[in-house]
């Protein structure tokens, strides 16, 4: 770190501290006294990439293949389990689904958890499970809960002071169904917007969000900034020059200007990626999002979420035509994810970057929720026997056994954890991992105790639900 950077970092950290303290003025988040004596675990990762398969990624058609039953007219729906055959991976005892050949080749860097479980929450609504997964708390709540990324931003701060610590790639929050529900958890909640996400729904336009406004040359941008500074300096309201709020405004303006004119800014511009490398990721918006995530982590991002995007009835939200849709999802995700892992590895970043592939729940052909659930059948075509290709696939929600893949960040390599039943119902039968414990595990890697908490309106609020998360220590090497 050269001197300039060191100064910049100090200023930024000071500003972050200032911002944190400023939130206190609102009578909200106070760090719990207990935190002072809390021993934080040693971090095994500095950055985190959450690859979010919004909509319900069917484990039997991705990372947990069961009996393969090919399409056949007249096949009873209950006979349908996996709609893709299993393939070998780089690890002897791990097989995953056909279509994921590139990921299969890097599974020797992965810890595969096949036993993630979720509660049913009544009607198995995507948005409620997504809220739960991202905040650790089941909605609705009496306070606005912060996203996992906001917790990292709040507790750990930025890794590189000029890169916002919480970046959210690929999810539109306007113009899509359930947008209000998406906004409800894509937020820093009671921490305040300083710790909220920088939203980059379109990876190709990400560069614009850190560029000066469209049509403004760099020269004009800096002269505008100079003009602003001159006016502040000339302000006749001198008595406010030392005012706490005034300083905080100027600090934030300063931070923004620094990012928008920094060299790290180019990390947001995926078109600067060499063509050959770019093409490896260029399968889809999601694939390009993976590339953006890699570039940001290389530049020092703390937490990046990149998603295939949740849009009701699209992508992983397969209520019909599941097989063909998942085949498309395979082709979108396979190369970019594998390339992301290889790139992080070749840059020496994988050891300190935790990459997670996860979804709000899995899917099944005949069970909605979990056996015994009274939720409505959400399949679009309610048929007993397959009559058309669009009937072929896993069209119902399933919360009893979901796959989560982790790479790097101190997790074991080529490791399989947990197991689901071989026959339906495909429940987790070994080492079930709740959302709460999943959070504890992720936070453990990042060096944050699951009991880290803040006082919100007189109620202690913890990074894992009520401070009860238990990290799954078996997945760490």
């Amino acid at each position: 770190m050269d001197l300039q950077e060191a100064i910049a970092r100090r200023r930024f950290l000071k500003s972050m501290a200032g911002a944190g303290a400023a939130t206190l003025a609102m009578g909200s988040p106070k760090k719990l006294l207990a935190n002072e004596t809390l021993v934080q675990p040693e971090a095994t990762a500095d950055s985190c990439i959450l690859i979010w398969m919004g909509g319900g990624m069917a484990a039997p058609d991705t990372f947990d293949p069961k009996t393969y039953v090919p399409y056949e007219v007249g096949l009873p729906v209950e006979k349908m389990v996996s709609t893709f055959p299993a393939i070998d991976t780089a690890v002897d005892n791990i097989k995953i689904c056909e279509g994921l050949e590139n990921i299969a080749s890097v599974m020797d860097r992965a810890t595969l958890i096949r036993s993630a479980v979720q509660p049913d929450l009544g009607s198995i609504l995507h948005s409620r499970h997504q809220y739960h997964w991202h905040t650790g708390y089941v909605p609705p709540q009496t306070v606005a809960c912060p996203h996992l990324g906001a917790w990292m931003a709040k507790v750990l701060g930025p890794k590189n002071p000029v890169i916002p610590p919480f970046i959210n790639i690929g999810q539109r929050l306007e113009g899509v169904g359930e947008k209000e529900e998406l906004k409800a958890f894509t937020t820093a909640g009671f921490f305040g917007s300083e710790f909220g996400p920088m939203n980059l729904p379109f990876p190709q336009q990400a560069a614009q969000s850190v560029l000066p406004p469209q049509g403004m040359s760099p020269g004009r941008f800096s002269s505008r900034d100079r003009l602003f500074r001159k006016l502040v300096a000339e302000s006749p309201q001198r008595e406010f020059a030392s005012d706490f709020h005034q300083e905080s405004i100027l600090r934030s303006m300063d931070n923004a200007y620094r990012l928008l004119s920094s060299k790290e800014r180019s990390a947001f511009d995926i078109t600067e990626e060499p063509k050959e490398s770019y093409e490896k990721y260029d399968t889809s918006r999601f694939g390009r999002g993976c590339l953006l995530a890699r570039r940001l982590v290389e530049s020092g991002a703390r937490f990046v979420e990149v998603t295939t995007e949740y849009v009701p009835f699209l992508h992983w939200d397969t209520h019909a035509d599941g097989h063909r849709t998942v085949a498309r999802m395979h082709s979108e995700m396979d190369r970019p994810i594998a390339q992301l892992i290889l790139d992080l590895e070749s840059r020496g970043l994988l050891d300190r970057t935790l990459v997670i592939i996860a979804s709000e729940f899995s899917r099944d052909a005949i069970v909605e929720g979990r056996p015994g659930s009274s939720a409505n059948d959400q399949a679009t075509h309610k048929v007993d026997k397959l009559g058309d290709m669009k009937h072929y696939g896993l069209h119902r929600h399933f919360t009893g056994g979901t796959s989560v893949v982790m790479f790097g960040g101190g997790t074991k390599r080529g490791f399989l954890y947990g197991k689901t039943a071989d026959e339906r119902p495909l429940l987790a039968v070994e080492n079930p991992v709740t959302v709460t414990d999943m959070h504890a595990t992720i936070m453990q890697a990042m060096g944050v105790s699951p009991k880290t908490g803040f006082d919100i309106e007189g109620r202690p609020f913890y990074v894992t639900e009520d401070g009860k998360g238990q990290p799954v220590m078996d997945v760490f090497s």
Partner: protein
Amino acid sequence: MRVSTICLRCRLAALSTVLSLVLVTPALAIDFAHEVVPILRAHCVKCHGGDEAKGGFSLNTRKLFLEGGAAEPGNAKESHFLELIASPDNDMQMPPKDLPRVPADQRRILARWVNEGLPWTSGFTFRENSYVPPLLPRQVNLPGPVGLNPIDQILRKHFKEAGLVPPKPVDDSTFLRRVSLDLVGLLPTQEQRRRFLASENANKRQVLVDDLLGRDVDYAEHWLTFWNDLLRNDYTGTGFITGGRKQISKWLYRSLVENKSYDQFARQLISPPDNDSRGFIDGIKWRGTVSAGQTVEIQFAQSVAQSFLGINLKCASCHDSFIDRWKLTDAYSLAAVYSNRPLDIHRCDKPTGEVATPAWLFPELGEIDTGLPPNERLKQLADLMTDQRNGRFARTIVNRLWAQLMGQGIVHPLDAMHTEPWNEDLLDFLANYLVESGYNLKAVLRLIATSAVYGGVSEVLGNDPASTEHVFVGRRAHRMTAEQFMDAVWQLTGAAPATIDAPVARGKADPQSAAQVNLQAEWVWGQSQSGGKPAPAGETLVFRAELRVPAEIKTGVAVLTVDNAFDLYINQRKVVSGDEWSKPQTVALSKWLKVQKDDTEPANQIEIIARNAGSGPNLAGLFFEAHLTLENGAKITLASGPNWSYTDEEQGRKRLRSGKLVGPWKKVVSAGRPAVYAGVDAALQNGLARGKAGDLMMVRAGLVKSDFLMRSLGRPNRDQIVTSRPADLTTLEAIDLSNGETLARTLQLGALRYAESDLSDRQVVQEIFIGALTRPPTNAELSVGLDALRMASVEGEPGDAADLSSRETAVQDLLWAVFMMPEFLMVR
């Protein structure tokens, strides 16, 4: 399975039954609040907590607990109190021999607690809060001198006792900007500034405050934001799309325009006279299973307690609160007032087996009659809440108003009304003042805004306000809300959007212009009423008219009403409904109508589904009248009358929405303007006049849906009640302000206005400064501004398009730089 969202202890019990076949519940960290406190309370606190310290031992705080040597953190074996609890020796054992023993499972919890290091919730104490907030109003004897604003009388004493010098008065410009933003949320115009500064009236600040508070519509459209936050009302958001939530926008808007007295306001929210104000108590009906702590009944209890009493019942919705006096039964009893089903009490999401009895939080003022039906109980609750003896009700709202103007509550945080105010006299006086004024909120605002302390210089915060003990030294500057920022920017750039999203008819008609409106429409119905017969009960007809709009609309308003109920559709989109003929609806039309550039384009379709209610044949009628003024000056009227047609609704709404209604279309029967309906004429005239006035006003940010920029600037998702906005500008906000598209577009529009004007550079700089900061630029600022504009002119050839555009970009940048100045962003 119900799923707890709050209390994990109980949750795990439920979870482990699901997973018990495959999972041994792992040992969990002790939960002090939920596991330990109840045991200590049940067995120890009576003698060793609060004011009691039998044997010299108090366990009020962790420190005291350890000082007595009762426990060795991390070592249960060495902890004396565990020994005493477990001891079979009658002389030694605790609790003493005549009291019940601590059961073995609870002893194990305590041992675990010790072994885990005796964790203790920060700030928690068994000592009763030494401050007990009074419930009844309290008479305040003003210290004098008589004639001084009572607030200043009280604060004179405060300043003297604290050894402080009261703040000096601010200059007139600063005061003007401050009080305009605080009371109506708008920047003063140049003309307002000129008049105010020129006035030599010694009472001109009071006159100004009265003028501002007299601007009923501006006032309402500013305070709408405060109330939307406090009553969690919004125009879009979770729950609306599934019908699980209702807006109260229309009711709220009118209540603010009318300055409805606050007791009546609260009564109509708690015990809604009709559907218009129901949304508040009905809360949000979430989809799927929700925890027992988030049912609509419990939401009712939480919302009523928080909004009106500054009481946080969120803890007590799940278990007895650890931070104040409220218990689980208090929350459920209040919920039961609303509930129309027996309400099973759940502790941490598990039923306790008890059913809640309707009651409210302060039975000392009167009780709820449990035998009454829910609506009657709500009426009783509303009466109790607004009873003049309920000092908490008045204190809570005046504290909020004080904070809005003065930057910080007299009790702070605002929703911790059980804590001590920094000046009891001030709070109690303001509360009494509210009651004595007939619950007139504007009267309280007026009193505050005309005090010397409000008109004094704002506190300069040397330090983080949270890290220092609060001593009131003067008004605290606060940041503009997202809505204030947008309104101010729109005022200066003219870039406000054209239409609002709030389903309200804006404005207020002055009685004169309303009386001048000449109603032209006639009451019509179907052929069932020909020859003066009454229409059959339940008859439903679809009326239809077409409206051609050949040019942009300047003002457009419609009023309509149906005896008994209607849904209005314009171009197949549902616009408004009504089910009370005596309350006509007013609709701002410009957002719904399309302009027909030529005759080939289809005209606007107006369709009204109208229903006659009743049990036997009775009079039915529809009245519709629209007045449009177009940008080209043309005036258009569309009025129901004999030339209208209708059909039966049997074809269904779907057909209507897809624009495929097929006749047969029949001629209506007109009843003219029968005397029986004359009672609504004034309301109809008023609606038309008001709509015209409303359309001529700038759209305010508080009336449009939240967007990316406003969200970034701190406008909350109103899923929860919000009582304060963020105090500081964050880096992400600064990024959005620095390069966001929304603001950039606004700046372009604003700059174009200046560039196309024939103002000189100097005038441009002056206008921008006076507009934004309510003061002219200093010489130094003027020269900075002029430099910025001149540099731009040098780049392009004078007189050509490049010059114009570069001057335009220079103005954009100047506007931006001024908007980012802390002096602009803060209400100082």
